[in-house]
């Protein structure tokens, strides 16, 4: 088991390095000058050149890369070129809203998608199943911001059940939190619910065709026990895997959702950083989301090994 974790960690290292290379090249090979963004409209050439010098942008690229990577390894992400605040601090400020939003959305997703997927698989081919499939295809096909606007229009502006924008942390009290964060969480989870309900259904149908399910039924177990005690646990692996690979999807949803609902999270920081050409911030965000993706998938592999004794004992 420990050997397994160690091997997986080791194989993740080159991936992280490649992420760093991509992040650096993407930002530095593209045209665009952060000095101009700092100076603003109406700035003169002289002012811009001075700013560029002070940011080290006049150094050769390899030098900039090595400098950056060295400090990165030491945990130093550098300083924002625009606001002159340490990048780590900027990111930390924005982490909570995004994590809270993502977790809330994930909770909604799992509470909805898994039972719905199980139901669809159990009633495979019947109208419930078709309805679930249809809803999931629609869920895939609606742009996130349209879902957001529709929800705001219906439940925010018209019915006034929920807040139209902003962020409340769970620390502000449960009701303010639910009042403010429910619409964004639903918006963010829609695509995810579609994906995971579908995956759960497919995975469950496959497992329900397995011999051991027939064995379980032959033992006289109730359907509930067969579905949840035997089938779902075996179906869980592909579902969990989708949660991991869907992480990238969630990030894109977060970027849009945070814009629509004005939540001061990582997603909006990403857009601001890119539009402001804040190189250190963009790089740090790309590397961090990349590493997070790798880490989440690593955890999922480990979780997979824990649920499945066939891996655990090999």
């Amino acid at each position, binding site marked *: 088991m420990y050997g397994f974790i160690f091997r997986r960690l080791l194989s993740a290292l080159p991936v992280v390095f490649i992420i760093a290379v991509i992040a650096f090249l993407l930002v530095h090979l593209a045209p665009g000058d952060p000095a101009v963004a700092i100076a603003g409209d109406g700035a003169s050439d002289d002012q811009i050149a001075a700013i560029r010098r002070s940011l080290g942008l006049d150094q050769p690229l390899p030098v900039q890369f090595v400098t950056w990577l060295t400090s990165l390894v030491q945990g130093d992400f550098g300083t924002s070129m625009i606001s002159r605040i340490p990048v780590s601090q900027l990111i930390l400020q924005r982490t909570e809203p995004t994590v809270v939003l993502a977790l809330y959305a994930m909770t909604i997703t799992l509470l909805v998608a898994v039972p719905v997927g199980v139901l669809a698989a159990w009633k495979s*081919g019947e109208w419930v199943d078709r309805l679930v499939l249809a809803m999931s295809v629609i869920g895939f096909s609606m742009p996130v911001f349209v879902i957001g606007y529709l929800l705001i229009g219906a439940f925010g502006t018209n019915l006034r059940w929920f807040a139209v924008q902003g962020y409340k942390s769970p620390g502000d009290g449960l009701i303010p939190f639910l009042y403010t964060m429910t619409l964004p969480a639903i918006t963010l989870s829609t695509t995810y619910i579609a994906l995971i309900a579908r995956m759960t259904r497919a995975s469950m149908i496959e497992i329900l065709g397995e*011999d051991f399910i027939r064995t379980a039924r032959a033992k*006289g177990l*109730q359907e509930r026990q067969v579905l949840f005690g035997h089938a779902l646990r*075996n179906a869980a692996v592909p579902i969990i895997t989708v949660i991991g690979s869907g992480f990238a999807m969630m990030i894109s949803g977060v970027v849009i959702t945070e814009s629509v609902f004005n939540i001061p999270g990582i997603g909006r920081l990403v857009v601001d950083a890119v539009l402001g050409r804040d190189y250190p911030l963009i790089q740090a965000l790309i590397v961090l989301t990349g590493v997070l993706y790798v880490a989440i998938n690593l955890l999922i592999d480990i979780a997979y090994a824990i649920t499945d004794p066939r891996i655990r004992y090999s």
Partner: protein
Amino acid sequence: MSADIVSAAASTVLSVRDLSVTTASGAAVPILQGVSFDIRAGQTLCIVGESGSGKSVTSLATMGLLPKAELSVTGGAIFLDDENVLDASPARLRRLRASRMSMIFQEPMTALNPLMTVGRQVEEVLCYHTDLQAGERRARVIAALSEVHLPNPEDMALRYPHQLSGGQRQRVMIAMALALNPRLLIADEPTTALDVSTQRQILSLIKELQRKHETAVLFITHDMGVVTDIADNVVVMRKGRVVEHGPVANVIQAPTERYTRKLLGSIPSLVPPMPREIVSERLALEVAGLEKTFFPGGNPVRAVQDVSFKLGTGRILGIVGESGSGKSTVARCVMLLERPTAGSLVVAGSDVAGLSREALRMHRRRIQMVFQDPNRSLNPRRKIAQTMIEGPLNYGAPKAESLRKAAELLELVGLPAEALSRYPHQFSGGQRQRIAIARALMLDPEVIVADEAVSALDVSVQAQVIRLLKDIRERLGVALLFITHDLRVAAQICDDIIVMQRGVVVESNTCRAVLTQPAHTYTRDLIEAAPGRDLDQVSRRWESYVHDID
């Protein structure tokens, strides 16, 4: 066969009356038609039949486990102790399962939940059907596991299915099925996936427990040998109907139906025919000191050690052994699909073990292969013609000539030339295996390696393919390396046999010598374990029925 529904006798546990099943969606295609039989307590009824005969559907219908979306019962009744299970509510049916009737399945690998300890899986039966306390349940689980003779039942209970051998898993299944002493045990091909020696143990275990608990057993099998070993009564099924029904002695010794006779006649005899004369001294294949070591996860596994044999032109050499004995690895090494770790490989006089890539490609035409599963050895996306001429085209033969040859060879294996324009899925399994044999012949090889080439086929088709292979050897003089786990098949086709166990050759001699005077205990055990030893004379009596047209 009486079709009238009569109240079952007091001792009758299961009484199936006029059972009919059709497909549920689309046109109702009949799957079972008017199936009737009885089983009394302590007795074993065998349902025997080839694939598609409806024997498994009968058992699933009894358990109420038919897939509702696909199959539905359209008539008849199934009485379990006077209670018609077809009328039982789903809740009642669940109560009956495991407590009054239980079932074990063919694949012990997949029939157990891989994520649950086997002890827990046995315990589930007790959880649902009894009010026992946790401690009592655990004791019952251990008792059930020791009753099926699993060593260290306490330890076994904590293991996961993948940590057990196939035989042990099937024992767990039996323990689970019999934990509540049900009146009826349904065993659906429970030993088909097991080696012969394990099969023998499982069969005797079932018999032992049946005697102990007076259980009625419905045993489903395609293997006539198993039938003669365990059945009291036999039902022969074919295409959803009962063909013949009666006490085992009657059905085996005096079958009245042609189909039963054909089945019996198809069983290869364990007694080999008289040896053929050696017609040529030429060696087609010579293997010496063959070794193959794999490194899964870094640890060396010596799959094959020091295997040597000689195969003369026009001869058939069998390699027999149980699963894991290394016989297939030998075949793959001979084909150079795996590079041997050590040893020499001489085909028609030239050593091929160390050939370069291009030289190897040129060599390949001299040695061809027939694979086990005819469903997967033909590319489903390519027409038979494309598949057949692929080899010659690779070696630069003109297309027209290759097509002509393909047509001839198809004819040789008993298929019309228009088969060339079709796709593999349009043929039955036996036909596909014929095509695979014809394909192997396209390059005029010196040697054909047949790896379990008849194992996946029904017994009647198997007999035909064996005959075809012998015929081809006769006509073309090709040498055949025949890999099989089935001693009966080997007895019928091989000139010489080598027996392998755990990667080494334990015995090597002429076929007759190996089967009639086995020198090694392992060989003796194998022969001993082969079911239905007394079938040989029966089988020979009905040999002529093998070629009945269906």
